[in-house]
């Protein structure tokens, strides 16, 4: 079984364009999802930041709404910038500085949205910081990698290692919380299975069968979350990437195309583990080359 973060290879991972591109795409996609959800989709609404300011602190509604919109638009612009800036061949210092600021903006806003959700009274909201860990960690992980461009030093293996360690912890946290919610039969997850079945598979699953499946999924989620941290096996990250994609798409299969923002905002659910897969693949390749 091959492992991530083998000490003999991290120093050789000084530049990894496909990994950087993956992270840029994930940041962009989840920012588009965020903007769709809270700004421009057919059923756009306000995030918990608005609810926290308006309902919990009595701020004027227009101010709370404006702050919410500004945060979302800033994330959308940040996501677009990070993606477009990557198209340039040799990024200038100012470009890199803006990219870094964009990533920090996205990190902060996703974190704030998650915190606001945690503070408010929804069921399981207290777990949202862990549940949404991949969302705010992906911009942070990318920021750690691109920070070298601002101060003109080469990205080192240490930066990659820190980034990937953060992504591993975040992926594990997200799967852990999802696993817990699945084991306690979170009703919305049960409905994802039932409605996806009704719309796509037509197996006619009963609620009890769906709940059995859900509990099994939950156990697997927690197992892979623990295994990822404990072993860093690549196959675990592959499973998490595939399952993260399946669960993201389940919003579409359950609720139809109108739920596209719900799918996009979960890009990091598969993107973060996939980054680990790529990173690990590079490590393996490098090790093989060295061994050869």
């Amino acid at each position, binding site marked *: 079984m091959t492992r991530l973060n083998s000490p003999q290879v991290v120093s050789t991972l000084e530049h990894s364009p496909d990994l950087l591109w993956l992270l840029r795409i994930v940041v962009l996609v989840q920012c588009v999802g965020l903007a769709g959800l809270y700004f421009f989709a057919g059923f756009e609404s306000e995030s918990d930041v608005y609810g926290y300011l308006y309902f919990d602190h009595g701020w004027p509604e227009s101010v709370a709404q404006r702050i919410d919109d500004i945060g979302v638009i800033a994330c959308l612009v940040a996501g677009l910038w990070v993606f477009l800036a990557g198209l340039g061949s040799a990024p200038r210092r100012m470009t890199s500085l803006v990219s870094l600021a964009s990533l920090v903006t996205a990190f902060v806003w996703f974190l704030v949205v998650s915190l606001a959700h945690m503070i408010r009274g929804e069921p399981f909201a207290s777990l949202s910081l862990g549940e949404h860990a991949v969302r705010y960690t992906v911009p942070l992980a990318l920021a750690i990698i691109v920070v070298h461009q601002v101060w003109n030093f080469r990205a080192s293996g240490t930066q990659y290692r820190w980034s990937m360690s953060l992504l591993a912890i975040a992926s594990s946290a997200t799967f852990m919380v999802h696993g817990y919610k699945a084991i306690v039969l979170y*009703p919305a997850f049960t409905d994802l299975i039932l*409605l996806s079945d009704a719309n796509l598979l037509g197996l006619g699953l009963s*609620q009890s069968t769906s709940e059995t499946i859900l509990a099994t999924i939950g156990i697997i989620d927690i197992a892979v979350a623990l295994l990822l941290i404990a072993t860093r096996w690549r196959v675990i990250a592959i499973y998490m990437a595939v399952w993260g994609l399946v669960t993201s798409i389940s919003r579409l299969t359950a*609720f*139809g195309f109108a739920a596209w923002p719900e799918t996009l905002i979960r890009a990091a659910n598969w993107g973060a583990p996939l980054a680990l897969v790529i990173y690990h693949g590079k490590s393996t390749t490098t090790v093989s080359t060295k061994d050869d």
Partner: protein
Amino acid sequence: MINNRLRAAAMFFVLTCWVAATAPRSLGDAPLVGTNPAHWRVTWISDPSTTATVSWSTAKQGKTHQLRYRVKGKTDVQGTQLARSGRFTGGNVELYYHHARLADLQPSTAYEVQLSSDGNDSPWLYFVTAPVDDRPITLLHGGDSRSDSAMRRKMNVMMAEMVTDSYANNDNADDLLALAHGGDYIVTGTNMQLWSVWLSDHELTTGSDGRMLPIIPARGNHDKGKPFNEVFGFPDEDPNYYAIDLGAQVRLVTLNTETSTAGDQAKWLDGELASSRPRYRWLVAQYHRPAFPAVKGPSTALQSWVPLFEKHNVDLVCEADGHNIKRTVPIRDGKLDETGIVYIGEGGLGVPQRTPKDDRWFLESPGMADQGHHVFVLTFQEDKLHGKCVLLGGKIRDQFELKVRRNFEQDPVR
């Protein structure tokens, strides 16, 4: 002499005005001390013509909790019902619930009740059971009474006045029977301190003559945890979806958006609507998270229940959660259709209001959306359902009518 008489008359006038101005408009705010009965309420979760749950709270555990009841106007106590008691779950607040379950009551009958805990008695209060015959009935519907106790209290006092006024006139059709509450009573459902304040505020729905307004509760997304069932007298693991008759021709289905909507509940709903549609002139549903929301994204009710509402030609659906006022156009197959279903509500029993997104297609004229503390008054008659949205202060913001479906057993056309 004349001056003295004038002075006496003036004093009498001033005194009369003062008494009128300060007379209690509702009966509530019982002190929550020791085993003094407080937080009184009547809940309808099964046949309201013959059963009712009368509940109260005490600050101390006490030993003996019972309810005396009699038909209003009679002096002899008809019976005594021991209460099911327990300590509320949630936080460090020490508070005890007592539920007296009354059964075998007579329909359309006023029952006086006195709550008693360890010899401490409440005043005699009363409620009226639902009718079983085919007569016009009127129901209040609202939701979202969380987060602003001051506004909630005003809404509760207004509802108490509306109940009193509805019985003061000669029009029996407008007599307010009960309040269907669409959920989100407080912001954090596991916080018993907040529930305690809500329960004290809810007492204000009691009229000055002691008339209690029965509540038909739905669970909201903020009503997580055990206290909801403890407050309303549901069994511990109750799924919180049920259907009751309000008269011979009105069936009210209460659904729970906070548990699986697509599984057993949808199956139950399909069966319930299939059996009810041929038997009732009016078929109404209430639940918390909207399928056609005025501010948020749609809940799973859109996939799980709307097809069933349309299949069985439900007449009206009452929603909450959005903190605004809305009435949709009639909807069928995701578009405006005269045979479709109208969705009203979104919640304004005290919660701060959001600005609705009135450019959503289902809210455009002849639908509507607005904001303001409000309650809907729904009058079910033989040939039509009349609804109005009453704002805090009494102004009517919206009115609508639905004709009875031509042949409500089969034909969706009104």
